């Protein structure tokens, strides 16, 4: 649970929202003044989702109990869900299998 103040959370949401809007508007607003985006920049932008998402997911499974531990229920449930996500690319199937396995392991322990 956050201990940031309510005001700070409003400010953070505002800045995040404004910044995101400016990113979305960028080239639509600039067209005519900026020719094209260099290839390298396009390539980097294309790699961002894979890198950031992997960096978010990995520690939430390996450090589910706070320290590095591959024997947790969450790591096992996450590993199975990863296979489902990879094979099906389906959000609902991934959440369903991961939560299902976690609840099963918790019920058995």
């Amino acid at each position, binding site marked *: *649970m*956050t201990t940031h103040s309510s005001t700070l959370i409003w400010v953070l949401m505002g800045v995040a929202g404004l910044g995101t809007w400016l990113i979305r508007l960028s080239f639509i607003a600039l067209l005519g003044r900026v020719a094209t985006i260099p290839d390298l920049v396009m390539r980097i932008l294309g790699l*961002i989702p*894979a890198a950031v998402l992997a*960096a978010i997911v990995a520690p939430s499974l390996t450090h589910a109990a706070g320290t590095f531990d591959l024997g947790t229920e969450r790591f096992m449930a996450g590993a199975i869900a990863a296979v489902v996500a990879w094979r099906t690319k389906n959000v609902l199937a991934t959440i369903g299998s991961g939560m299902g396995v976690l*609840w099963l392991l918790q019920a058995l322990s």
Partner: protein
Amino acid sequence: MKQHSSPRTPFAAGFFDITPILIGVFPFGLIAGIAAIEAGLDSVQAYAASPIVFAGAAQLAMMDLLGRDATPIVIVATVLVINSRMAMYSAALAPSFRGLGPIRKAYGAFVITDQSFAVSIVRFDRVAESLPDRFAYFMGASMGLWGTWQISTILGVVVGTGVPDEWSLDFAIPLVFMALLFPAIKDRGSTIAAITAAIAAVAFVSLPLNLGLLAASGIGITAGAIWGRT
């Protein structure tokens, strides 16, 4: 992509074309609403996050970091890094939106998402339409997604306030990220970027200020850009 039989307005066609994708967006929005409550936001803030930030993965990551009391600058930087991919969409859509008035550009840009971008760019490639029709198609697709995102996060906030901790519903957050991760791994570069970032993130867990996520992402992107050339 031109639809046969009954003639549709471009707005309706956009809305119709994005509908199959919305089924996958709904559970994601539900989790984003739950995540806001889990992070300790009050309900008003939890409801307001979707209309203000209006981002999927970034909004979810923001809630995750808020819940862990990450430093404000890291929270904002993470959101902007995740959303920087939308500069690509902006660049790709710009030629199709050339000549729009500033107000339409402003609100049109606000509702760009991965999904509405994807269906629109396919349509613009295949169907030659006037500028107002192109914009109407894009808005139809975008409004379908916008509405679904708002409704599903509202439901998530309502559900999130009532769910007991024993259900471990917070685990749905990494699961959603996982479901988004695999479609993002498309080629050699993105595979290298994902694997490198994952290993680095695990190694960087104890970096102060939750900087691990940004540092690991940077390393993953660099590795993917260097060794991902085909």
